[in-house]
């Protein structure tokens, strides 16, 4: 069996000659999913673009990319483009953005049949309807993309790809922004495609996706392949140190926290029968919650379930529609604080970090030296102080955010998906830091996440927010029960 896609010793460098991809080789075979696993900046997306023959102008590529007999690095643009939709198709990163916002779902599928495969209109229509049905999208043909949920948009994109029915299917971070159940569903559907006899190449940063897909796995780090082999083997017993670290960074493999002391003292934060509607839709129906000093409570919920709203209501960043929030009396408002999901967004973009800490120290009369010791504990080099937020990594920035929050002696910390935008390895360093730092200050932490493994790994108590109500989702072994 010949490979549908063959990449040999692919090198890509930018205009200045900086290498971005250093000798990647891979082959994709029909029926066997291939997963390219790597962190941000590992060069995994470049592999896809090179395969498509759509590298941005200014990048130089060497090596060999053969797609169904066409040499993609040397073929003229027209020849490369002729393969699109016929030999190769792409499942885009965020399907919602990749669908034409002004065209109905069915037309977006049917036009592939009509214009790419040359079917007459009635047949194209019928085929398109069949594809929608296959993917559970019956009845949505007349909808526009914005009327579809994230999962439906992805299925619609898949329907379009099925219509093209190309031998090679590329998927670019297909689970970006999806929560665990939808991530697993997306992976399952890609595996289905492979089982239909297509060569499926998936690029992702998520080990769970690689595991769900099976097939072959290729681990990429800083433009070089560190490990390559069948998923079962690579994910079970990785040979390379980086691969091992990557796998160990999965929250499910973390060492569990030591049994916390029973929380004592008056509640820091109490919510009684909170209600909140957004845009006319009831989001929180009746939520009650008590947090005591030193405990870390995780609230699990899918996107849009209202978990961030809950935290913001507790902090007073939003007004409640009903119910009551009781805070520990006599405590300055800034000692109830927050960590944001997207670290760069939580810093003033034009302010160097030193400046930001400086205004903070002046506002609250904190000696600047205190930040120095804190940075040391959080593993932040002093040189970072003179950078702009955009110039340091997300992990470093989130640690600065933690530093900033802790310097105010918080009694309550609302951590809103604090590690979801971080690479797995970084998450594995930052998340425990959050737990330890909060515990050392005796602050209560409300951790909001969509990742049950992360919640399990960090929290003393795990609650699930579903349809506007909180329910216990089990608890850490040995941890205190109840609400």
């Amino acid at each position, binding site marked *: 069996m010949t490979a549908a896609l063959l990449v040999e010793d692919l090198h890509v460098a930018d205009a200045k000659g900086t290498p971005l991809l250093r000798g990647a080789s891979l082959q994709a075979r029909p029926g066997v999913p291939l997963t390219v696993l790597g962190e941000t900046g590992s060069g995994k997306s470049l592999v896809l673009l090179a395969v498509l023959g759509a590298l941005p102008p200014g990048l130089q590529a060497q090596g060999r990319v053969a797609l169904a007999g066409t040499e993609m690095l040397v073929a003229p643009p027209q020849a490369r483009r002729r393969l699109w939709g016929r030999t190769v198709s792409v499942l885009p990163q965020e399907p919602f953005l990749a669908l034409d916002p002004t065209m109905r779902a069915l037309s977006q599928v049917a036009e592939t049949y009509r214009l790419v495969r040359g079917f007459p209109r009635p047949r194209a229509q019928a085929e398109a309807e069949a594809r929608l049905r296959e993917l559970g999208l019956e009845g949505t043909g007349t909808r526009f993309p914005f009327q579809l949920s994230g999962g439906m948009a992805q299925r619609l994109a898949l329907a379009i790809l099925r219509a093209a029915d190309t031998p090679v299917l590329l998927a670019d971070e297909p689970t970006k922004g999806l929560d665990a159940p939808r991530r697993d569903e997306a992976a399952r559907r890609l595996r289905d495609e492979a089982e239909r006899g297509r060569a499926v190449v998936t690029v992702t940063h998520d080990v769970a996706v690689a595991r769900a897909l099976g097939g072959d796995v290729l681990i990429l780090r800083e433009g070089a392949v560190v490990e390559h082999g069948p998923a079962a083997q690579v994910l079970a017993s990785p040979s390379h140190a980086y691969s091992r670290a990557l796998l160990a960074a999965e929250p499910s493999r973390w060492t569990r926290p030591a049994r916390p002391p029973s929380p004592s003292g008056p509640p820091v934060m109490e919510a009684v029968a909170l209600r909140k509607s957004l845009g006319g839709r009831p989001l929180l129906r009746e939520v009650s919650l008590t947090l005591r000093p030193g405990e870390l409570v995780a609230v699990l919920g899918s996107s849009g379930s209202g978990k961030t709203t809950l935290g913001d209501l507790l902090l007073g960043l939003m007004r409640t529609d009903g119910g009551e929030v009781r805070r520990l009396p006599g405590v300055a*408002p800034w000692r109830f*604080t927050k960590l944001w999901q997207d670290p760069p967004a*939580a*810093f*003033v973009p034009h*302010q160097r970090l030193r400046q930001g800490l400086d*205004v903070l120290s002046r506002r609250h009369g904190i000696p600047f030296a205190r930040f120095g010791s804190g940075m040391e504990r959080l593993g932040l080099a002093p040189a970072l102080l003179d950078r702009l937020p955009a110039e340091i990594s997300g992990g470093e920035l989130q640690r600065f955010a933690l530093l900033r929050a802790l310097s105010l002696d918080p009694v309550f910390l609302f951590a809103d998906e604090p590690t979801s935008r971080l690479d797995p390895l970084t998450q594995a360093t930052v998340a425990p830091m959050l737990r330890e730092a909060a515990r050392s200050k005796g602050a209560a932490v409300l951790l909001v996440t969509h990742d049950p493994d992360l919640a399990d790994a960090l929290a003393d108590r795990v609650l699930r927010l579903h349809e506007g109500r909180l329910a216990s989702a089990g608890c850490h072994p040995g941890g205190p029960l109840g609400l």
Partner: protein
Amino acid sequence: MSGARGLGAALLLLLGGLALLGPSLLPDPALQDLRSALQPPGTTWWLGTDHLGRSVLARAAHALRFSLTLAATAVGIAVLLGTGLGLLAASLGGLADRALAALGDATLALPGLLLVMVVVAFAPGEILPLSGGVALAQWVHFFRVARAEARRVLALPHAEAARVLGFGPDYVLRRLVLPELRPILLTLVGFGLGTAVLQVAALSFVGVGVRPPTPELGSMTTELLPYLPEAPVQALVPAVLVAMLVLGFQLLSADEGQKP
């Protein structure tokens, strides 16, 4: 600095220099010599003379200074008023915000020139009502931008962060909103200055301008329009200067606006 921006700066520098230095170096712009009316450009009068025998160059230099001052005053008022109300609306929110936005929408629906004309009719030929009128026509643009940008920034996590960290609204507006707003405002100011120059020129054209003998670019063109066939240079110079001023402002700000 890109080519366009450089060209814009050079144009404005040239015109600004003429406006700044011209009046002290050139003859009195009100000095008339009726027997030398409509002289073509030459060694005595570099840009010729107008219908009253006045030096077009001297008048142009004064007119430039006048136009620049007036446009700057008008846009200054508009920026202060518009930005102030915009920030106020965005930070107050609720009913006050909606009322101000509705006022802005209603103002926007009226042609700017109409507003200026109504205000100027108060005191024909006075400079302050003229700049006030232009400001009245322009504030709403600054208001809309300031309000939208302030709302955007105030909803960002870093503004929320500042509030959570104990900073007051004053700090948030000054340190977080204004720096983001500044480049957009600068672009808008550039276009606003150009528009102000054009609006005053247009007002002069319909007969609501400044008092004689104040040289003003719009009224200079209007006065010389009947003489276009016999004195084309003199009649075109003010119009060209208006175009160059506006062009300079636009080039300077267009580039600013394209920055990421």
